[in-house]
């Protein structure tokens, strides 16, 4: 079922302040077992809270696996040098996306504070991943408002833009996607297959990316959401590979 190539658009590497850790060795072992070819890695937030060094550590850890692993720069927008951290990550460290985590870095996704970072993302033509669905901080409509200020920047809501086990977050996520052409979702933890399938039907498969959120989510299980989705093969290929390559500007 499905085409051979799989790109996981969001995994984490490093050692987090919360005790979670994920090494390149462990990641590649799981990827090999699941036939996942490539992944975009985001740094876990270290106990030092120093994201500049986390980005550097990420680059060091993946540099010998450039055929499998790409990296995203993680930035805390509250830091006075946030823009420099992002520029350095993209221009000097070879990172390919911006990762923002409103929950762990404590900011609202719709704050003007983020605009300088989005401006850089636009100029560098890189996508922005935002940890989404967190109450007060990154609900789907808050992320929408940021994305609408930067219509040329692809903004990816993680977790389908929702963390509501009642299913009551789906409507806002769908509303946001319908109003905002540069808004995308990844599928980590999206327990409602019908939400994935209806998003594909309503807005096109190009708006949905397989992202596992590993190790917080189980890559073995998360890949099944894509491989077993009731969509045509072209849509499945887009979700598991094509969209990631397109957003990251990868060519054969």
């Amino acid at each position, binding site marked *: 079922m499905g085409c051979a190539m799989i790109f996981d658009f969001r995994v984490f590497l490093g050692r987090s302040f919360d005790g979670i850790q994920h090494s390149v060795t462990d990641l590649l072992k799981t990827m090999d077992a699941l036939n996942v070819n490539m992944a975009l890695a985001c740094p876990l937030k270290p106990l030092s809270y120093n994201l500049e060094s986390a980005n550097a550590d990420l680059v060091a850890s993946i540099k010998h696996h450039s055929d499998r692993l790409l990296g995203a720069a993680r930035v805390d927008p509250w830091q006075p040098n946030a823009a420099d951290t992002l520029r350095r990550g993209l221009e000097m460290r070879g990172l390919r996306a911006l990762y923002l985590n409103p929950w762990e870095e404590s900011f609202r996704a719709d704050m003007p504070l983020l605009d300088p970072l989005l401006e850089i993302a636009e100029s560098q033509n890189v996508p922005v991943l935002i940890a989404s669905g967190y109450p007060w901080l990154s609900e789907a409509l808050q992320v929408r408002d940021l994305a609408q200020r930067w219509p040329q920047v692809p903004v990816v809501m993680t977790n389908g833009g929702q963390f509501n086990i*009642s299913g009551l977050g789906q409507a806002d996520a769908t509303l946001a996607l319908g109003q905002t052409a540069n808004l995308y979702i990844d599928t980590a933890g999206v327990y409602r297959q019908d939400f994935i399938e209806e998003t594909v039907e309503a807005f096109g498969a190009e708006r949905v990316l397989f992202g596992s959120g590993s190790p917080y989510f189980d890559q073995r299980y998360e890949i099944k959401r894509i491989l077993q989705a009731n969509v045509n093969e072209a849509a499945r290929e887009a979700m598991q590979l094509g969209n990631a390559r397109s957003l990251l500007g990868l060519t054969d």
Partner: protein
Amino acid sequence: MIIDSHTHVDEVEAWGWFDPPEVLLPLLDEAGIDQAIIMTYRDATGPDDPATAYILDAIARYPDRLIGYVRLNAEAPNALDALDRALGQDGLKGLKLHTVSYVGFPYGESTLRLMRRSAKYNAPVLFHSGDEPLALPQELAEAACLCPETTVIFGHMGGFYHCEAAIQAAQDLPNILLDTSAMPYPEMIRRAVETIGAERVLFGSDGPGCVPALEIQKVHLAGLSPEDEALVLGGNIKRILDGVRHDI
């Protein structure tokens, strides 16, 4: 035998959710599930509520596959009468409460009286549990503590960020069981079994929105022993259902 302890049938135009039994049954077939417990999306408010009638009609048409729970708004004045009708005369097997849906405190008297009455029937009370206020495992545990004679099931095992709290609550209170539906972590199923025992963990899919075949694979990925997995996939809920009585 595999029994799915948490599925839905209902048609709610306001939410755009149209899930008659004929949507659910093929998904059960695909997953190799023998029977499923069904409940509505709506909260019934009295003995003659169309939501409960919808469940009764479904199990009348598919008696070998579907088992019914009544879902109630505990704050409705006639909720207790509705529960008696459902568990007594109608022969339904349990009570579903979604405290977020009816905006009620789990440890409020309206909810507690239904829990206590359910215990008279030996009928389980399945709560929606999750990350939102009114459905937090800690709140539900307060209710379970006040009704130690009631079999309380935490649907979704606490959702995304409250699985550990749900397991802790079940560790503290022996009348709490956990269902595996929707929450995304195979590891938490394994941890629940290790912590509270396989006898208190129930497979549920929350289908048809969540695909039962996928939800079963989540249980498989938990890596349980064959004996424990058999309990989770059906043995436990069968034991509970067999104990339900319809006369008090």
